[in-house]
C-alpha cells in the first residue's frame, strides 16, 4: 500500500464516519471544558467533627428524619431559654399532656422542683440523639440534653468538668403535632389486664414508661380469709417482669402482704431500658403464699418463718402486660 492509497483510505474512512467522529470530538471537547471549569473551582476545606447531634449514639446507622431535626432543635432551645429566663409556665406548657400528668401530677410546682434540680442556675446545653423506640407505629426519638455551666466563659476556673443529663423524647401525636416529654418520661399506656383465682385478684391498670424503668400500677385484692404474701423477701424472685429472653426483679418495694379481704394499690417498678428492643410480656408473682398463720418477718425467728411458709398454700400467678 503506497502513501496515496493510505491517504485515500483515511479520507474515505473519515467521510464514511463523519457524523460519529464529530460526535466523539464534541463529547471530548465538552468533557475537557467541564474538567477545566471544575479545576478552577476552589474546594473550601471543612472542619471535620464527630459531633452529629441527630445521629443516634446507640445505633449510628439511624438518625432523626431531616424534617424533624430543626423543629426538635428549636423546641429544645425555646424550652431551655424559657427555663434560663425563669419563665417556668412557658416551659411547662411546652410539655405533652401525658408528661404533665404522669411526670408532674399536673402540678407546676412539681415541675419547678424538677427544673431546679436539673438547672439550679442558667445553663448552657447541648443535645445528642440517643436512640429511637416505637410505641405501636409511632416513632419516639430519645435525645439526651446535657446541661453545663458556661465552660467557655469560665475556662473551668475553680470548677470541675461536669454536666447534668436529661432525656427528652419527641414524637408526633395523632394530629401530627410534635410533642415533647422531659424528665426521662416516654409514655403512659393503659394495660387493664386481670388475673384472678379463688384467693387473689391482680389487676394491672396501666404502666408508665421512663427511659430506664417501667412503673406498673397494680391493684391486689385478697378474696380469702387468710393473709396472702406476695413479696416479703423470704423467697427468691418473688415478683418478676418477664421479657422475651430474661426477667427483671422488682425494685424498691419491700413487702406486699394482704390481710384477709384487703385491697391494696401498689406501684411496681422494674428496671428496663426503653430502647433495648424488648417488649415486656408479663408480671410473674412466682411465690404467692396463702398463709395459715403469718407472724411477719421482723423480730420473728427463722424457724417460725420457715414453719409458716411450709404450712402455706403456695402458687404463682402471671398477668399479661403485653397489649
Amino acid at each position, binding site marked *: 500500500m503506497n502513501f496515496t492509497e493510505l491517504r485515500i483510505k483515511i479520507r474515505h474512512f473519515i467521510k464514511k464516519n463523519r457524523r460519529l467522529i464529530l460526535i466523539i470530538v464534541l463529547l471530548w471537547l465538552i468533557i475537557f471544558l467541564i474538567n*477545566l*471549569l471544575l479545576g478552577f473551582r476552589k474546594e473550601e476545606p471543612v472542619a471535620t467533627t464527630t459531633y452529629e447531634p441527630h445521629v443516634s449514639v446507640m445505633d449510628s446507622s439511624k438518625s432523626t428524619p431531616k424534617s424533624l431535626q430543626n423543629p426538635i432543635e428549636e423546641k429544645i432551645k425555646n424550652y431551655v431559654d424559657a427555663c434560663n429566663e425563669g419563665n417556668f409556665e412557658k416551659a411547662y406548657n411546652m410539655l405533652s399532656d401525658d408528661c404533665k400528668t404522669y411526670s408532674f401530677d399536673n402540678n407546676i410546682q412539681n415541675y419547678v422542683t424538677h427544673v431546679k434540680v436539673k438547672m439550679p442556675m442558667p445553663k448552657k446545653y447541648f443535645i445528642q440523639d440517643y436512640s429511637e423506640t416505637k410505641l405501636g407505629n409511632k416513632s419516639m426519638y430519645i435525645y439526651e440534653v446535657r446541661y453545663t455551666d458556661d465552660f*467557655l466563659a469560665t475556662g473551668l476556673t475553680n470548677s470541675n468538668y461536669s454536666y447534668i443529663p436529661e432525656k427528652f423524647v419527641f414524637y408526633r401525636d395523632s394530629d401530627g403535632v410534635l410533642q415533647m416529654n422531659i424528665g426521662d418520661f416516654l409514655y403512659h399506656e393503659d394495660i387493664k389486664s386481670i388475673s384472678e383465682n379463688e384467693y387473689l385478684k391482680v389487676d394491672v391498670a396501666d404502666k408508665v414508661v421512663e427511659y430506664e424503668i417501667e412503673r406498673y400500677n397494680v391493684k391486689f385484692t385478697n378474696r380469702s380469709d387468710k393473709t396472702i404474701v406476695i413479696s416479703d423477701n423470704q423467697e427468691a424472685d418473688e415478683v418478676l417482669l418477664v421479657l422475651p429472653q430474661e426477667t427483671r426483679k422488682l425494685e424498691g418495694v419491700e413487702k406486699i402482704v394482704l390481710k384477709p379481704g384487703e385491697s391494696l394499690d401498689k406501684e411496681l417498678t422494674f428496671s428496663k431500658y426503653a430502647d433495648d428492643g424488648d417488649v415486656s410480656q408479663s408480671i410473674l408473682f412466682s411465690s404467692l403464699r396463702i398463709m395459715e398463720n403469718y407472724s411477719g418477718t421482723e423480730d420473728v425467728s427463722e424457724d417460725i418463718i420457715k414453719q409458716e411458709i411450709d404450712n402455706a398454700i403456695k402458687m404463682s400467678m402471671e398477668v399479661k402486660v403485653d397489649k
Partner: protein
Amino acid sequence: MRIKKNNKPIILCIIIVIIIIILVIVKSVSNKNKIDYSKLSDEELDLVVANKIQEINKIDLSSLNERERMEYYVSEFITAIENKNYETAYQMLYSDFKENYFPNYSDFEEYAENKFPSNIALNHTNIERNGDVYILWVTVANPLAGKSSGMEINFVIKENDLNDFELSFSVI
C-alpha cells in the same frame, strides 16, 4: 432525526460559536483567580500573603482530626505567649472569659508574664467534647525546670471554622 443538507453549515457555525463562548468563559474565570502582584501596594500585598497563609493553614488543618486541631489551637495560644505576643494570645480569648477575668489587656499581659514560664512544654492528657465545645486537660511545664514545674490547666475551645476559634483556660 435527519439533518437537512442545507442546514449543516448553520449547525456547524452554532457549535463553533458555543465552543468559543465556553473558551471565553474559561479564560475569564482563570484570569479572575490570578492576582497581578506588581500592581499591589505593600499593605495589599501583606493582606494577600496573610490570606494565603490562612488558606494554607486551613488546608493543613482540614487534614487533622478534631483532637489534633484542638491541640494545635492550644499550641498556637501558648506559642504566642512564649513569643511574648500577648496581644495575639489575648485576641484568641473568648469575649465573656475576657470580661470575667481579664477585662483589660494589661491584666492579661501581667498574668501571662508572671504565670507562664518563658519556655513552655505541653502535655495533653485528656480531651472531652461537649457539643461544639472542647475541653482539654493540659500540663504546662518549663522543660528546663523539670517535671515538678508543671501546672495542670484546662483549656476550653470553640471552633467556629478551620483556624477560627475562641478559647479560655482555667485561671490559676
